[in-house]
């Protein structure tokens, strides 16, 4: 058994329906508070994204490589905080579900119940917390479940077989299949571990499996989607936003969408 019996959250319900209809899922990541971030999300939604992962900038992003580190630092230097990001997220009039990617101290500091409620008020339906492994997840997951926030768990290539079903069982929304041993960032090729882990997960769960970390361009997204139900695009999106602005994000998302339409 995976996830809850019959009642999935909004994101998982939509993802399952789209998968059933033969569509691969595309989730771009945008650092909240970067100049142009709202326009980037609107552009991504219009270009075929199925959900958006909003990164909440943190001072010590241990799972992130240079691009997202720099984006976080820029946002923090500009004085951005979660109140500002949540207020601006609420103004987003996109049709697709919004998730946050945030480090655990942001939640811990705000308080579990309070943070879950803040997400709900901001119209955000899911959370991804890369430094909160299964064993430490209960306090947050309890609060998130109570507020109807879907918590996406990460699965890594290092996980032994017995661990994967336990992770999948705790996943809401989708399972984040970590593509490689390493931090976020662009790589010249898709690691073999990306499709290996996605295949291992597909074999043990019917929760949608999305590959993230090290899926760096449209070709790699296509390769990952031969096995997985979809992909998360992080550094490649954020880099375009920082270097070329929101329109470039829209163009890139359209390119990836085309590549994963089989």
């Amino acid at each position, binding site marked *: 058994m995976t996830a809850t019996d019959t009642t999935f959250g909004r994101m998982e319900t939509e993802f399952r329906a789209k998968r059933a209809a033969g569509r691969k899922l595309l989730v771009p990541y945008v650092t909240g508070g970067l100049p142009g971030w709202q326009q980037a999300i609107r552009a991504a939604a219009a270009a075929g994204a199925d959900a958006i992962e909003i990164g909440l900038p943190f001072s*010590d992003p241990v799972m992130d490589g240079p691009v997202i580190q720099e984006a976080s630092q820029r946002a923090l230097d500009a004085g951005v905080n979660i109140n500002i990001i949540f207020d601006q997220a609420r103004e987003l009039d996109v049709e697709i579900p919004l998730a946050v990617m945030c480090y655990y101290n942001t939640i811990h500091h705000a308080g579990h119940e309070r943070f879950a409620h803040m997400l709900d008020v901001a119209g955000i339906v899911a959370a991804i917390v890369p430094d909160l492994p*299964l064993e430490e997840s209960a306090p947050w997951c309890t609060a998130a479940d109570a507020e109807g926030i879907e918590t996406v768990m990460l699965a890594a290539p290092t996980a032994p077989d017995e661990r994967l079903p336990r992770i999948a069982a705790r996943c809401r929304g989708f399972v984040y299949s970590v593509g490689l041993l390493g931090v976020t960032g662009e790589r010249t090729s898709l690691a073999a571990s990306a499709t290996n882990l996605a295949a291992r997960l597909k074999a043990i769960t019917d929760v949608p499996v999305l590959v993230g970390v090290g899926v760096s361009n449209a070709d790699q997204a296509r390769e990952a989607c031969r096995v997985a139900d979809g992909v998360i695009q992080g550094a490649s999106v954020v880099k375009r936003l920082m270097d070329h602005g929101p329109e470039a994000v829209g163009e890139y998302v359209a390119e990836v969408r085309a590549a994963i339409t089989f």
Partner: protein
Amino acid sequence: MSIMAEPSAEGRFGEFGGRFVPETLVPACQELEAAFREAWSDPSFIAELDNLLREYAGRPSILTECHNLGAQLGIRLLLKREDLNHTGSHKINNVLGQALLAKRMGKTRLVAETGAGQHGVASATAAALLGMTCKVYMGAVDVERQGLNVFRMHLLGSEVEAVHSGSRTLKDAVNEAMRDWVANVGETHYCLGSVMGPHPYPWMVREFHRVIGKEAFAQCNDLLGSPPDVVVACVGGGSNAMGIFSGFVDTPARLIGVEPAGGAAVGRGIPGVVHGMRSYLMQDEYGQVQEAHSISAGLDYPGVGPEHSYLASIGRAEYPTVTDAEVIEAFQMMARSEGIIPALECAHAMAWIAREAPTMQGQTVLMNLSGRGDKDVNQMMEILGG
């Protein structure tokens, strides 16, 4: 049972500790915990480590009574001389333990973070001795102010990478070392330098430093016939303090961990989660980790080991602060009165003792002199104007 016993199965000391790491590292932490547990109950591992500590690091370290300072301050002052260990600080105790364990686990490469450079030098030393490769991450600010130790690490055959992200000090070096570990977890052991990080590090590093407290307890017993009244150590992450506290936590001695005023995790912090652990942490109203500011690179850390947070929360240890100005004064006082140049980190402990001596008249105070001050001489020359 000792107050400083094994943490819970989840790696908790009271409500502190735990294992807040990316999923990729969970199996590595579990594997490390199992390997340490097994090695630490294996007499052959203990004998091998003891042998290295004795014949390579130069243990046991001596206890020095400071008659001059004692007379000046009206106290009996004893120093545990960890500065006399090979590589010049207590850090070698932990590093030899971890490097031996890493070899036993089949790892061929060490990564380490360093602040003042003492842990980096110790790691580079152990890697050279045991035939492993080693990469040390060091904040760019610290590379600047600890040039001598950077060169030492190069001499010892290690690679040193200056970290330019965030505050460019110790906390950012930890982030970068963790990122390296995530990417290279198969062959690499993260040789963490303090009683911090995810379980089992705070416990394991404390166990490797327990030798300090064990020796000091026996030495005090020989000299005094009883434990001292007060045990004092500086606290950044808190490994030297944990080492010496472990020998006296179950005695009536007061335990004092001295933090820099600009890096007072226990004093000004509230519980937070960073670097794999839940502990007191300097952070802003949104949970962003704040930058520590101290004259001493080794104490420039906004967090603290979780067991220190636990000892503070139950009132067993006290965590006062001293200012940079008090530290500069204490550094010179120790040099002039005793002919010992302390590391700036340890000068924090001395500064607290000098300030509080009037309230401790006639008492016996044991201070952990965890490192020697050679590395700080250039910096002090700039401050004092040669």
